[in-house]
Structures are given as C-alpha cells and as structure tokens.
C-alpha cells in the first residue's frame, strides 16, 4: 500500500472534520446541539489556555475571570444597549485582550508556582469583584441575556446557535493555527522550554509573554460571550475559580498546547461529568454525585503519569503506530506529520 502524501492526508482530515462539524446538528436533537455548542465554547477557552500555558509556559489558574468579563460584555451590550450579538463578540475579545495584556505585565515578574498563586487569587477574586458594582453587573441576580433566535425558518434555534459557535470557533482556530505554526509560536515555545536560551537568542520575552496573555484572554472572553448566550443569563457568582481550574484541567487532559487537544478537552469537560454520573448511578446512586470530581481527578493523574501530551497525544501516537504497521517502516517515515507542538 503506497502512502498518501501529507498534503492530501491533511486535506482529507480537514474535509472530514468539516463534514462532521457542519452536519452534526442535523443528526442530533436540539438539546444535543446545545451540548455541542458548550463543547465548542470550552474548546475556545481551552485553546486560549493552550496558548498561554502549553506554548508560552505561563500557568494560569484564573482564566475564568476573562470568561466572566466576556460574558458580561455581551450581556450588557445586548441587554442594555441593544447591540447586535455579533457586534459584542469583537468588543468582548478586545476588552479581554487588553485586560489580559495588563494582567500579563505584572505576571512577567512571576514564574511557576508564584504565577499559579497570583492567578489563583485572580480567579477567586473575579466573581466577587464583578458582583460588587451591582448597577453595572446586576449584582447577585445578574443580567438576563436575550435568547438567541434563529433568523431562518429551516434552522432551529439550537442549531443556529451551534453554527454561530462553530463560526467563532473556526475563526479562533485559524488564528491560533496561524500563530502557533509561525514565528510567534516558535518564539513562545522556546520561551517555554528555556527563558534564558530564548532571551540570549534575542527574543523579546516581555513582548511575547504579554502577547500570549492577551491572546489567551481574548479567546477566553469570546468563550465567555458565547457562554452567556448559551446560559441565557450572566451572573458573577457562576464564574468561580472552579471554572478556571476546570478549563486548565480539561486542556491538560485533552492535550496541552494543541488545537486538537482543546477540542478533546471541550468534549471531556462537557460530557465526562454527566456521563460518569449516569454510569455510576446504575451501580451506586449515592456515589454518583462524587463521580464527576473523582473521575476528573483520576483522569488528570493518569494523564500526568502516563500521557503528558494528553488524549490528543495518545491518539496521535496510536495513529502513527498503526500507520507504521500498515505501511511498513520506510513508507511511513517518509513523511512524518509535524506536530503542532
């Protein structure tokens, strides 16, 4: 069996993904379309974290703050100023991007565990800080977000929303892919691997690191906008630090640093809690409430122990092994698909 050149394989892969992505809403229920929207929303947020942590090596336990800000931008924009939904997206991205930049500045002085602590403080403080100016953010009650209505007769509301999320996700993925595979991505990864080496090769550490913060915050903000629309309302208290942690954990499990990893992470975060709950419920109803937390924790430990590159990494390795076996060594090694990381 001759091997197919990389170009065609990759094109085929993307084509398959496009078909699945576009076709899914037609073969699932409305509720499931909404679930898939959540998957995309998480994936967008996780992609941001993949860029920040997986590529530029900065840990953040507080990205939920940016998600919250993005959600509020959309909610306030639509509810109070009657803006069009699509207009709030770039505004949210811009606001969060700038916020991320300003937070990235002091973050330059922190590293590793200290950065984790500082961002943890951010993640804990965000809901509290956002709740306080009640006039703007609606305080404890929050702000109701106008529901998403499909402008087309042949498209249900949930399906329409899914396509909106898909559109945003595709744009975000393209931007990420562009950044990661180019000069900027290489600079980020060299910073992650060794700041000293990066600096001595003339890379402007401050510039790239704050850029990573800004981009990841912008992505998180977009995810927040969509999240607010999906939930139907935005309230400060629903963006606790557990959200930040679950985004980080999910992106690690999915595969830190890659676009595929973010998507898998989104799938995990959306479906694992409910599936594990229902699964355990059959055997032991009282254990089922603990199932999501325990499963996530165990899965995280397993990934850290055995599969540092997450599930995406496992899939990639398995795919290559299978190719090796099917084609024989020479053909398979002739063109190794370059990793995004």
């Amino acid at each position, binding site marked *: 069996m001759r091997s197919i050149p990389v170009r065609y394989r990759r094109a085929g892969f993307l084509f398959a993904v496009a078909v699945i992505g576009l076709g899914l809403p037609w073969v699932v229920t409305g509720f499931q379309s909404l679930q898939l929207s959540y998957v995309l929303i998480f994936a967008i947020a996780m992609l941001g974290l993949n860029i920040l*942590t997986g590529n530029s*090596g900065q*840990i953040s*336990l507080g990205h939920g703050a940016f998600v919250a800000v993005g959600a509020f931008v959309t909610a306030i924009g639509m509810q109070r100023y009657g803006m069009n939904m699509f207009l709030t997206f770039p505004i949210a991205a811009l606001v969060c991007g700038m916020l991320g930049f300003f937070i990235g500045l*002091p973050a330059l*002085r*922190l*590293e*590793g*565990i*200290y950065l*984790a*602590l*500082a961002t*943890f*403080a*951010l993640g*804990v*403080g965000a809901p*509290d*800080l956002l709740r*306080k100016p009640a006039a703007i953010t609606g305080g404890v009650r929050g702000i109701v977000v106008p529901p998403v209505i499909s402008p087309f007769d042949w498209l249900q509301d949930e399906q329409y929303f899914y396509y909106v999320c898909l559109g945003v996700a595709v744009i975000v993925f393209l931007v990420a892919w562009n950044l990661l595979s180019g000069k900027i991505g290489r600079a980020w990864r060299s910073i992650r691997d060794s700041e*000293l080496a990066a600096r001595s090769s003339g890379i402007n550490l401050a510039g790239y690191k704050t850029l990573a913060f800004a981009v990841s915050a912008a992505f998180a903000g977009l995810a927040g906008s969509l999240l607010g629309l999906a939930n139907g309302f935005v309230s400060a208290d629903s963006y606790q630090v557990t959200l930040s*942690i679950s985004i*980080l*954990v999910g992106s*690690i499990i999915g595969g830190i640093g890659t676009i595929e990893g973010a998507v898998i992470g989104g799938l995990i975060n959306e479906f694992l809690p409910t599936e594990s709950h229902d699964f355990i419920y059959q055997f032991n109803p*009282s*254990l089922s*409430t*603990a*199932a*999501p*937390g*325990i499963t*996530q*924790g*165990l899965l*995280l*430990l397993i990934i*850290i*122990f055995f599969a540092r590159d997450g599930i995406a990494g496992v899939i990639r390795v398995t795919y290559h092994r299978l190719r090796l076996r099917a084609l024989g060594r020479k053909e398979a090694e002739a063109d190794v698909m370059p990793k995004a990381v």
Partner: protein
Amino acid sequence: MSDFIAQVVAGLAAGGIYASLALALVIIYTAVGLVNFAQGEFAMFATFICYTLLTNFKLSYFIAFPIAVGIAFVAAFGIERAVIRPFYKSSQLTTVLVTLALLSITNSTAGFIWGYVPRAFPSPFPFKPVNVLGVSVSIQDTAVIGVTLVVLVLIWLLINRTRVGLAMRAAAAYPDTAELMGIKVGNMRGFGWGLAAAAGAVSGILVAPRIFLEPNMMQGIIVYAFAAAVLGGIDNPVGAVVGGLLLGVTLALVGAYIPSLADLRLEMTLGLIILLLVVRPSGLFGRPHVRRV
C-alpha cells in the same frame, strides 16, 4: 476600648485559624518544594473525620480532636508515598496539576461520603461572651487562640528542637547530603506532608463550629491562608503564623472600624497576595527570592 480588645481577640482567633492553615502550606513548601492547592480540602476531610468520631462514635471532643489530627498525619504520609513521590523532579506545572487533582478527588470523596448538606459542628466551647477584666470576650475565641498557640508551639518544637525535625529540615534543603547522613529523604518528605496535614486539620476543626461543615467549607479560608503564607514569607513557618495573626487582627479591625472597606476585605486580601508576589515575594520574613535567570 473594651470593644477594641474584643475585636482584637476575635481577630486573633480568626488569625489563629489562618495561621494554622498557612503553616501547613509553608511546611509543605519548605519540606517538599511545592504549593499544595489541596491543603484546604485535606483540612476539611480531617474535620469531617473528627465530626464522625464525635457523632457516630460519641467520643469526647478532647479525644476526637487529637485522633482526627493523627489520622490526618498518617493519611497524608500515605498520600505522599503513593501519589506525590513520583513527581519530585517534575515541572512546576505538573506539581500544581497533581495538587489540583487531589483537590478534586478529596472534595468529591467528602461529598460522596457525607453529602453536601451543611451541618452544625459541635464545640465544647460556648459562643457566649464572658466578662474578663471589663472586656467582653467570647470563650470560643479564647479557646481557639489557646489551642492554636499550643499546637503551633508544639509543631515549632518538633521542627526545631528534635532529632527528627532536624532531619526533616536537612532533607528539605539538602536532600543529597542528608542521604549521605543516613536520612531517608523520602520518609522525611512524607513526614512533612503528615505534619502539614495535622496543622491543617487543627485549622479545620477549630473553624468548623463558626461556619457550617460541608465539603466546600475551607475554600473561603484557604485564600486567607495563602495570603498569610505569602505575607509571612512562603518559606518561613514562624512568618506564616505571624502573618496569619496579623491578617486576622487587621481584617477584624477593618471590619469593625472602617465600614466602607468592610465589604471589600476579600478583594483587599487578594490584592495583597498579588501585590506581594509581584513586589516582594519573600514577604516579611522569608528569604529573598532568587529569580532563576
């Protein structure tokens, strides 16, 4: 004036609780080199165990307390051996993630065993205030301060005046050399985890009567413990205690005398953490933080 003293006492009591949990964080950081984000959950779990001893086994508070602390010590030692030991040479991100995983598992397990309905925690110390030298002081607060002080002093003595404490300090700072002296560094790390869990357990058990016992109870407190640890110097046990007491008293006084800021105490604490980390990571008493170039 008497009101002021009462506030200070209340502040010291709260501060003692922050101090114990902060001490737990600092012990782990110095003995093991990582920040345990799950420390609050460990404390919560130990508190639940104490609760079970009190209600299911009907033990006296003064027996259940040390037993629960002892169980926390042993369990943490075991967790270190099983879960943490493989990760010593790993990156900071990895250690953060491992502790996050522990956080998740511990929290969910507690939820599974005891449920999420808040319970009242019995305490032998009444909340009623008592008149001491013209000052109205709560017995609960005084007891908390007393117990905290005793425990913290015991831990200090253990770390600084015993053979095993000396070995632990050596193993933490100079693991290779300590091994050459015959010290089993792995066991010393486990010992450090155990000691930290014990300190955390004290914190949890003492705070439980005033907030309700439920799996998420320590999440509000861990933030103040982090602040206290960073304030005192993340590698200085005495600093952690001083930081905790200072923080407790300051927050109490702000709450009582500056009403406009009273509502922002959490934000102020978080701001303090971030400010300290950026400007002066070694806090008040810590060793100057050397940045790896």
